[in-house]
């Protein structure tokens, strides 16, 4: 503060408000600066496309992609496709999350549970789950079921592993203190085990959501007659690179959105850690 005043002999002792304004203006400037290079890349891309250096059947120009995005949004194609894909992820995530969390709690709170559940889970987790696609198709055909199963597989493991280790990492002495306060098993689960495992479980949630979107893309690329993957595959046949890019952009926006959602949950639920 004194350095600041000394360097500006003319300024009156600044009010806290002014200091804050100056600081946030500086941070806004650095935020703006971070947009310069991405925008420059897009601009160069556009110029090269206009000049014919980048052929349209390899990748469309940014302006073209923007126009297509607008067109697809207006005629409802994009919205419908997104809805179908999101529903798949939600269904697969719900199934996988229930399986992963239930198994983690069973393994986490009892020895017998651990000895029963953990060995097969540890063996299965080394299996690359995309490798199961042929089996899933043999078992379930090529409808919605194998897609949802693939996403559920992808979700269940990171959630299981993280939640289980979260439960195991809980200080036994806390559980003991809860016992001396007369808390029942169920109350201990609710007040000690679940909140104690939450930080690690949320790490698992973030991982599992990442895998969920990845599984969706793989499943939809392998076979789909609706959804974003279908839209992209269909566009491929007609070399519509603009539609492909729009589809990819939606995938990444959805991924980003769920990731920020988990971060928001973390900030709220883990406020005690700051």
């Amino acid at each position: 503060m004194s350095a600041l005043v000394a360097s500006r002999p003319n300024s009156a002792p600044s009010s806290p408000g002014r200091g804050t304004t100056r600081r946030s203006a500086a941070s806004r400037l650095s935020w703006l600066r971070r947009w310069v290079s991405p925008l420059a890349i897009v601009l160069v891309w556009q110029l090269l496309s206009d000049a014919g250096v980048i052929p349209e059947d390899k990748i469309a120009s940014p302006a073209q992609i923007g126009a297509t995005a607008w067109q697809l949004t207006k005629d409802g194609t994009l919205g419908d496709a997104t809805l179908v894909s999101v529903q798949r992820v939600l269904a697969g995530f719900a199934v996988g999350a229930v399986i992963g969390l239930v198994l983690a709690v069973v393994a986490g709170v009892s020895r017998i549970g651990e000895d029963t559940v953990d060995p097969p889970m540890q063996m299965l987790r080394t299996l690359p789950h995309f490798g199961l696609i042929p089996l899933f198709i043999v078992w379930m055909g090529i409808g919605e079921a194998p897609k949802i199963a693939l996403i559920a597989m992808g979700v269940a493991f990171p959630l299981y592993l993280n939640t289980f280790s979260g439960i195991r990492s809980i200080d036994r002495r806390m559980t003991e203190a809860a016992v001396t306060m007369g808390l029942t098993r169920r109350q201990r689960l609710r007040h000690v085990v679940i909140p104690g495992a939450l930080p690690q479980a949320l790490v698992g949630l973030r991982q599992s959501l990442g895998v969920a979107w990845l599984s969706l893309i793989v499943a939809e690329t392998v076979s789909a007659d609706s959804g974003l993957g279908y839209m992209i595959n269909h566009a491929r046949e007609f070399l519509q690179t603009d539609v492909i890019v729009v589809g990819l952009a939606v995938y990444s926006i959805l991924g980003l959105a769920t990731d920020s959602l988990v971060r928001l949950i973390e900030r709220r639920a883990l406020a005690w850690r700051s």
Partner: protein
Amino acid sequence: MALLTTRPKTGPNGSESRRSVGDTVAEVRGHHRSFGSTHVLRGADLTVRRGEFVALLGRSGSGKSTLLRSLAGLDPSPKGEVSVTGRTSVAFQEPRLLPWRTVERNVELALLNTVRDASRSEKVRGALAEVSLTEKTDVWPGSLSGGQAQRVSLARALVSEPDLLLLDEPFSALDALTRIEMHALVTQLWERHQPAILLVTHDVDEAIALADRVLVLDQGRIAREWQVPLRRTSRSPEHHQIAQLRDEVLGALGVTPTNAHHQETGAA
């Protein structure tokens, strides 16, 4: 607090009148406990009377915590060996607060099964006021100092108005000044609420300053026992009865009292 009025009011050295109440809160008879081939407790006997303040000393590894855990119900013991009547609560060497609950909600947890939702908050605030932590009601335990956290732990143990309060070296991790404050606080809370207290400690002076009765655990049994003379306020280390008791207890613990102590107290 409301419930206190139902208990007999006694003075600071009220062990005499409390003893006349006659009933016991905890009774251990011929208690055995071993871990593998190590026999930690070998037929330990212990009686704690209602409202009595008992200090339990013993060398490290002698089984003090084992005995306390049996009384706390943390260690299943054979039928008939350990019986406790009434409510028990425990404060440990570490505060063991749940870091994801605020101070208030930590204390509240001790009332989960005993007190109606509506009246919990008032009791919790009362308990926190008693340990002078009213202003810390809404903070996370992680932001408390060691002494403050231990006071919350004490509030949590007392809020349920226990008949027996088990303390396992609750002050040993605190600095000397804070420990002295905690001694005063525990004495004050004990006088006000009159739970029976079993205090496990390594500190002979602490035991003599606080307790009505001092026990030494050795070879898996209560090997020695003393009634502490004088009122708490008169128990200065220079007093010959106190000095003598101190030497005896140290002797029972296998420590030869050094001359240094006598010189020190003589000079003081």
